[in-house]
C-alpha cells in the first residue's frame, strides 16, 4: 500500500474548486435561453446550495470521525468493501468520461481541426496515469499552479471582453420556473466534487467549515462572471458566435490579441488533466491500489476504451455526457452511501 502524507484540507478544497470551475469551461453551454442573467444567477445560488448539501455527509464524517468512506468501507468487511469500491470506481470512471469526451470533442472541433479525438484522449490519459501514480498530495500541489493559470486566463478573458459590454438588452429580470429549474440542474453538476471529497477527506488535516463554503463561493463567483460576460458581451466577436456553443468561442475573447486564447486551451487541458488524474486516484483508492502503476494504467486503458467506443456510437456518447445521469449517480456517491456508513457507524458505536 502506498504511503500517503496527510496534507492541508485547504489545498484539497482549492483543487476541488478548480475541478468545479472546469465544468463551465468544458461543458456544452446548454442553459435555457428563456432565463435572463439574473435568473441564471439565482440558478447558480440554487445549484451550489445543493452542492453544499451534498458535502454535508462527508463533512460530518470528517469532523466527527476524521475519516472517509473508503476507510470505513475497508473496516466494514469484504463484501461491503468490494461493493463500495466497485460502485465508486464505476462512478469515477463515468465522471472522468463526462469531462474527457467533451474536451476531446471541443479540442478537435475548435482547436486542432481534424485531429483524431482518440489520439488526444490517449495522450492526456497517459499523462494522467503518471500524475495519478504520484498521488493526491502531488496533484493538489499541481493545483496551485493551475490556480495561478486560471487567475491569469480569467483575467485576460474578462478584460478582453470588457470593452464590448452592452447592458441594454439583457438587463431585465426575465425567466420561467422551468427555465430556472433546468438551469439549476446544470449548476448541480459540480456536485461531483463532493463525491471526490467523500473518498479523499481521510488524507487531509486541519479541516474547517469555512473551507467548503469558500470553495463553493469562489466557484459561484467564477460562474457568475462567466454568465455576466456571456449575457452582456455583445461585441462583433461575441455577436458572431451562436448562443449554444462552447465557451471557447463565446467567452474566450481576447480583443485584438491573437494567440492569447491559447491560455484558454492551456487551462482547459490542464483542468481535464487534473480532474482525470484525481478521479483515477480515487478509483485506485477504493481498491487500496494507490500508487500502483499497473492498475492505474489499467483503469486509464478502460477510460480510453470507452472513449474509443463512444466515438463510434453516438448513443454511448450521449449517455456518458448526460448531466442528469451524472447528477443521479453523484447523489448516491456523495449523499446516500456516506449517510449509510454514518448511520452504520453511529449504531455500531
Amino acid at each position: 500500500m502506498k504511503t500517503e502524507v496527510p496534507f492541508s484540507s485547504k489545498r484539497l478544497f482549492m483543487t476541488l474548486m478548480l475541478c468545479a470551475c472546469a465544468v463551465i469551461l468544458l461543458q456544452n453551454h446548454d442553459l435555457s435561453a428563456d432565463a435572463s442573467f439574473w435568473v441564471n444567477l439565482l440558478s447558480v445560488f440554487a445549484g451550489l446550495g445543493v452542492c453544499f448539501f451534498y458535502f454535508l455527509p462527508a463533512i460530518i464524517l470528517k469532523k466527527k470521525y476524521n475519516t472517509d468512506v473508503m476507510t470505513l468501507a475497508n473496516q466494514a468487511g469484504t463484501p461491503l468493501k468490494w461493493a463500495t469500491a466497485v460502485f465508486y470506481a464505476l462512478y469515477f470512471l463515468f465522471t472522468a468520461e463526462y469531462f474527457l469526451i467533451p474536451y476531446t470533442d471541443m479540442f478537435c472541433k475548435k482547436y486542432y481541426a481534424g485531429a483524431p479525438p482518440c489520439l488526444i484522449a490517449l495522450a492526456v490519459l497517459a499523462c494522467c496515469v503518471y500524475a495519478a501514480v504520484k498521488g493526491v498530495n502531488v496533484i493538489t500541489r499541481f493545483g496551485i499552479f493551475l490556480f495561478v493559470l486560471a487567475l491569469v486566463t480569467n483575467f485576460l478573458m474578462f478584460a478582453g471582453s470588457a470593452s464590448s459590454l452592452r447592458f441594454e438588452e439583457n438587463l431585465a429580470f426575465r425567466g420561467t420556473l422551468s427555465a430556472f429549474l433546468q438551469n439549476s440542474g446544470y449548476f448541480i453538476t459540480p456536485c461531483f466534487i463532493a463525491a471526490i471529497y467523500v473518498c479523499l477527506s481521510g488524507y487531509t488535516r486541519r479541516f474547517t467549515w469555512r473551507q467548503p463554503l469558500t470553495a463553493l463561493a469562489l466557484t459561484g463567483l467564477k460562474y457568475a462572471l462567466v454568465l455576466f460576460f456571456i449575457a452582456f458581451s455583445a461585441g462583433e466577436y461575441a455577436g458572431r458566435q451562436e448562443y449554444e456553443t462552447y465557451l471557447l468561442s463565446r467567452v474566450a475573447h481576447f480583443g485584438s490579441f491573437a494567440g492569447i486564447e491559447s491560455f484558454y486551451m492551456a487551462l482547459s487541458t490542464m483542468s481535464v488533466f487534473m480532474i482525470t488524474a484525481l478521479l483515477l486516484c480515487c478509483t485506485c483508492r477504493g481498491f487500496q491500489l494507490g500508487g500502483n502503476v499497473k492498475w492505474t494504467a489499467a483503469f486509464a486503458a478502460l477510460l480510453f476504451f470507452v472513449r474509443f467506443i463512444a466515438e463510434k456510437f453516438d448513443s454511448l456518447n450521449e449517455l456518458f455526457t448526460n448531466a442528469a445521469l451524472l447528477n443521479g449517480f453523484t447523489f448516491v456517491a456523495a449523499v446516500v452511501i456516506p449517510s449509510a456508513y454514518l448511520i452504520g457507524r453511529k449504531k455500531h458505536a
Partner: protein
Amino acid sequence: MNNSLKENIKNLQTLFANSADLSVREVTLKSVRQIRAAILTVEGMVSKEELAQSSVNPLMAFDFGAKTEREAYQTILSRVLASSDVTEIEGQEQLISFITSGFAVIALDGVEKMIAVGSQGYAYRGVAEPESEVVQRGAREGFTEPLRVNMSLLRRRVKSPDLVFEQMTVGKKSRTQLMLCYLQKAVSQELLEKLRERLQSCDLETVLASGYLAEYLEDSRTSRLFSGVGISERPDTVCGKLTEGRIAIIVDGTPAVMLVPHLFVEEFQGVDDYSNRTYYAAFIRTLKYLSFFTAIFLPAIYTAFAQFHPEYFPTWILVKTSKSLSETPLPVTLEVLLITFVYEIMKEAGLRIPKSLGHAVSIVGALVIGESAVTAGIISSSTLMVVATAAICSYVTSSLYPPIMTLRFLFVIVGGTLGLWGIVLATAIVLISMCSKTSLGVPYMSSLAPFSLRTMRDVFVRAGWKKLSEHTIKVQNFAETEEKA
C-alpha cells in the same frame, strides 16, 4: 599493531606496498635503556618545519633517564611533544587514517600504541573568490580544497557553540573525510538522522568530489531532473542556509559544499539580494524567473508557432519570419534542434579549450557558424536569434543549466510535433514531477507548492531585513509528516 617496532614498520610498509612516499625515520631516544622509536610520515603531507619544532627536536632533546618504554611513551604523550594536536592511535585503521591525513606518527619499540601529531603541511590553493558565485557587495572569500580551512571559514562567521561539525568518513579506498555542519538549535534531528543514514549507506570505493555523494542524498523514487542537493562555494551563503535549519556537507578536497534540504526557490536567491535594496532585489529575482522560463519555453513556443500556429505571430514578425524560414532547407523543428545542438558543442569546447584559443573559437562560432550559415541560407536568422536569446537566458540561473538544457530539447521536440497543446501537456508532466520531488522529505517546490504565504517574503521579492529578522523560517517546517493512509 604489536609491541615490536620493526614488525609494525614492516607491516605498514607492506600495507603501503613499499610506496615511495612513506617516510620512516628510526631514532634512538636519549635514555639509559636506549629506547628505539620511529617517526612515520607521508612525504609532502607534513610541514618539515612544524614537525621538527613540535616533535623531532623535543623528542631528541628530552632525557628519558631510566624510564621503561611504556613510561617513556606516557611521558612523550603528556610532556614532550610541543603540539596541541596529539592523539593516541590504537588500531591499524586509525593509523592509516592519520598518516594519510598528514599527521606524523611516533611509534616506540615495546609499545603497541602509537602517537599521532598534527603537523600537516601540504600545498593547497588559497582562499579566493569563487568564479561561479561572483557577487558585487559580499565577501570575496570562497571555500577551498582542505576541509579544515573550510571549517575555519564557517567558524569565523558563526562564533557560537551552536555550530557543530560532525566528522564522517566515506569511500572504502579513498577514506575521504567529510563534515556534517549544522546549527544545533536550528536543525531538525529527524533530518539529521536521515542524512547520517544515507551517508552511511554510501558504498563507493572512492569519493573524490562532493558530487559523488549527491546521488546518495537524493530521496529515492523522486525525479532526478532537478537537484535536491544545493551547492555553494561561498561561506556566507552556507552560513545563511545553516540558520534556516539546513545541513552542510563539506567534503575534503572539494570547494563545493553541499546543502540539504534544497528547494527550487533557492535557485533564484543570491547573496547580493540581501545586500541590495529590496526593490532592486525583487527586480533581479523577477528577471531570473523570466529568464528561466524564456530559456526553456522560447525555442519551443517559436517552433510551435512557426509549425502549427503562424497566425499567432504579429503580422510584421510573421512576414519576416516566413520569408526567413522559407529560404532555409530544414523544417523549423530540426533547425532549432540543430542550432541548439551546435551551441551545446561550442559551449563544451569553450569550457575545455585553453584560454589562449578561446578567442579563435568565439570568432569561428560567431562568424563562421553563425553569420555564414545564415548568409548561405542553411539556417534562418530568426531561429538563430531565438536560440541565442534562450542560451543567454539559461545562464542567469546557471545552477539550473542541466534541467534547462534537457527541458529545452524536450519542449522543442514536443512543440514541433504536437504544437502548443503538446507543450501544455509536457508542462503539466514536468510540474507534477517537480511537485512530487522531495529533498530529505521536504517538498522541493515548498513555498510555492505547498504554498506558504509567510515564506513569500523571500521568494519573488525580498522583504526588508527588519521583517525578515522577525521570524526565521526553518526549512524543516515545510516537511509533511509521513503517516500511513
